């Protein structure tokens, strides 16, 4: 397989931009030979994760940053950044998080430089890892 492509998107915080992030992630997953099950789960997870971050503030902040990479063959890692603090995110046992955890292999949250940093990782379902 060719070297994994890397995407970095800096998009305005609005629903149309979420569509761009979602579609880009799905397109990369397709190129990495994700099965449709895993691809659709990741697409849904990206949507939910963006929704969580958009929910941090009703003020349309300037940007949402999405970095998509494949650090290991057959896996995809989506890093999302939005201004705010993770303390403002919903409780970890809420339904939104349950959904996220069910859809991808791992979900991590951290604070860095005044931004909330959310990481999703997913595997292709094709037996690389």
């Amino acid at each position, binding site marked *: 397989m060719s070297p994994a492509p890397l995407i970095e998107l800096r998009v305005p915080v609005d629903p149309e931009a979420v*569509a761009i992030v979602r579609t880009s992630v799905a397109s990369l997953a397709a190129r990495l030979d994700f099965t*449709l099950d895993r691809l659709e789960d990741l*697409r849904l997870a990206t949507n939910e994760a963006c929704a969580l971050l958009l929910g941090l503030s009703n003020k349309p902040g300037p940007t949402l940053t999405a970095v998509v990479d494949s650090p290991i063959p057959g896996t995809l890692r989506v890093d999302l950044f939005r201004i705010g603090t993770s303390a403002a995110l919903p409780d970890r046992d809420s339904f939104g998080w349950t959904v996220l955890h069910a859809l991808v292999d791992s979900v991590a949250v951290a604070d860095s430089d005044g931004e909330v940093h959310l990481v999703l990782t997913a595997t292709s379902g094709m037996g690389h890892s």
Partner: protein
Amino acid sequence: MNQPHHPHQPLAERREGERQMLREFAAMAPHDPGRSPLRDRIITSHMPLVIAMAQRFRDRGEPLDDLIQVGMIGLLNAVDRFDPGRGLEFSTFATPTIIGEIKRHFRDRGGAIRIPRRLQESRVRVNESTEALATSLGRSPTVREVAAHSGLTDDEVLDALESAHAYSALSLDNGGGDGHSFSLSDTLGGDDAEFEQIEVRETVIPLLAALDPRARRIVVMRFYENRSQSEIAQEMGISQMHVSRLLARSLAQMRDTLGADL
């Protein structure tokens, strides 16, 4: 309905008449026999508002009459909930409710909106190939495999998958038109923030209960039993694409329900 508004009456006079009716209506006791006829008059006089809102969504593939009809539901709710004492103009109060019903209608209609024929055809082919391959491979196929099997390009397969989702609710917020901006809280973001801050046990169960039985079963299978979309598709006897669509739509509906209740 006895008294439609008078088109030739001066605008300011008509507005004042409407305000007067709303004040009277709000002051009436729940069982006042005059309440129902007055309500009809209020609704009739505000129909132009609903028509104007519906027209903003007219080019989106749904008959205008249907849009007016669902918009009227929003108007009825707004009339019943309006409190003139809060100093808000009724039209300001009612507009989001009416638009909300129209958008919900589009959302309920799912991916069927404004999908070009070419895309509909490729969706059918993607579905057929996905099912054939899942059987022969014993697992969910990749986009590349579906493309090779169906004779479509990778991008066409991806487009077909994306179009199958209820995500259209998002782009609806975009073209609502002029003059009325929708805040983020009107869409995903705000609802979700509120959505999350409440205990799971108290909220999720009623939300699940509000889904139709099939959608509920799919949500539970996917998120609580951790079954894959393919497994669910097989068990339910529907396509994986359909499962995916129902999941996306159910989540959107659950957010919506909560947003409306809070």
